[in-house]
C-alpha cells in the first residue's frame, strides 16, 4: 500500500516539476533548469520519453526470464506473467516511439527520419507484434505457451543489439550516436543536478507504475481463468 502512495506522490511531483519548472540561461534557484542550446523548452520531454524506452527493455527482459522459467517448469502462471509483461512492453514501446517522434518533430524538423534509433525501436515493435501474431495462430494452450516462450527468448537476444549497440555505432541524429563524442546525456551524467534528480525520480515512478500494472494484469488473467474453470463444472 505504501508504495502505491509513494508512486502517486512521485509521479505527481515529476509531472509538476518536469513540466512547469522554467528553463533559464543561468539557473539560480533550485527550481530552474539550464538552457541546452538547440533544445530549449522541449528538453523536458526527456523526463517522460527515456523512462518509457527504459521500461520497454525492462518489460521484455521480464518476459524473457519468465519464458525461460516456463520452459523449465511448464507452470502455466509463468506463461501468463510473460504474456502480461510482453503486453506492457509493447504498450511502452509504442509510447516511446510516439514520444520520440513528437520530440523529433521539434528537435529535428520531421516526425520520422529513419534515424537508427527510430528504426530500431520500430523493429522492436515488429518483433513483439509478431510474437502476438504467433500466439494467436496456435490453438492448443500448452503448445502456444511453449512456442511463444521460445520466440520470446530468441527475440530478446536481438533487443540488446537494437537498443544498446546499433544506435551507438551508426551515424544519426539521436544523442549518443556515432556522430556524438559521448554516449548521450543520460549515461554520461552530464545533466544538471536538478534535472538529474527529477529524471531519476521519474524513472522510479514509471518503474513502480509498470510493476503495479503488471501485477494487476497477470492476477486478473489468472482469476478469469479460475472463474471460467469454476463455472464450467
Amino acid at each position, binding site marked *: 500500500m505504501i508504495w502505491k502512495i509513494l508512486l502517486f506522490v512521485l509521479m505527481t511531483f515529476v509531472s509538476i516539476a518536469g513540466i512547469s519548472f522554467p528553463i533559464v540561461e543561468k539557473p539560480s534557484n533550485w527550481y530552474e533548469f539550464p538552457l541546452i542550446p538547440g533544445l530549449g523548452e522541449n528538453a523536458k520531454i526527456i523526463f517522460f520519453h527515456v523512462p518509457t524506452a527504459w521500461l520497454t527493455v525492462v518489460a521484455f527482459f521480464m518476459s524473457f526470464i519468465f519464458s525461460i522459467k516456463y520452459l523449465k517448469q511448464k507452470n502455466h502462471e509463468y506463461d501468463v506473467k510473460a504474456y502480461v509483461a510482453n503486453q506492457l512492453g509493447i504498450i511502452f514501446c509504442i509510447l516511446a516511439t510516439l514520444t520520440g517522434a513528437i520530440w523529433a518533430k521539434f528537435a529535428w524538423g520531421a516526425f520520422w527520419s529513419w534515424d537508427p534509433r527510430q528504426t530500431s525501436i520500430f523493429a522492436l515493435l515488429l518483433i513483439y507484434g509478431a510474437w502476438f501474431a504467433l500466439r494467436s495462430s496456435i490453438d492448443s494452450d500448452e503448445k502456444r505457451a511453449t512456442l511463444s516462450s521460445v520466440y520470446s527468448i530468441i527475440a530478446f537476444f536481438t533487443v540488446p543489439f537494437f537498443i544498446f549497440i546499433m544506435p551507438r555505432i551508426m551515424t544519426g541524429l539521436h544523442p549518443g550516436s556515432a556522430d556524438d563524442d559521448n554516449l548521450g546525456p543520460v549515461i554520461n551524467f552530464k545533466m544538471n543536478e536538478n534535472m538529474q534528480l527529477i529524471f531519476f525520480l521519474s524513472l522510479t515512478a514509471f518503474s513502480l507504475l509498470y510493476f503495479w500494472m503488471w501485477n*494487476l494484469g497477470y492476477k486478473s488473467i489468472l482469476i478469469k481463468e479460475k472463474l471460467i474453470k469454476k463455472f464450467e463444472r
Partner: protein
Amino acid sequence: MLQFLTDKAIYIVMIIVLIVWIGIFFYLLTMDRRIKIIEKELKGDNYEE
C-alpha cells in the same frame, strides 16, 4: 483573458497531465481493490470445498 492563458500555457499542460494521471491512478486503485476482493472470495471457496 486569451493572452493570459497563452502565456501560462505550460501550466495548463501541467494541469491536464495531472488530471490524466490522477484518473489513471484511481482507475488502477479501483481495479486493485476489486481484484483483492475476488481473490479473497476464490480463496474462501477453495477452503470450503
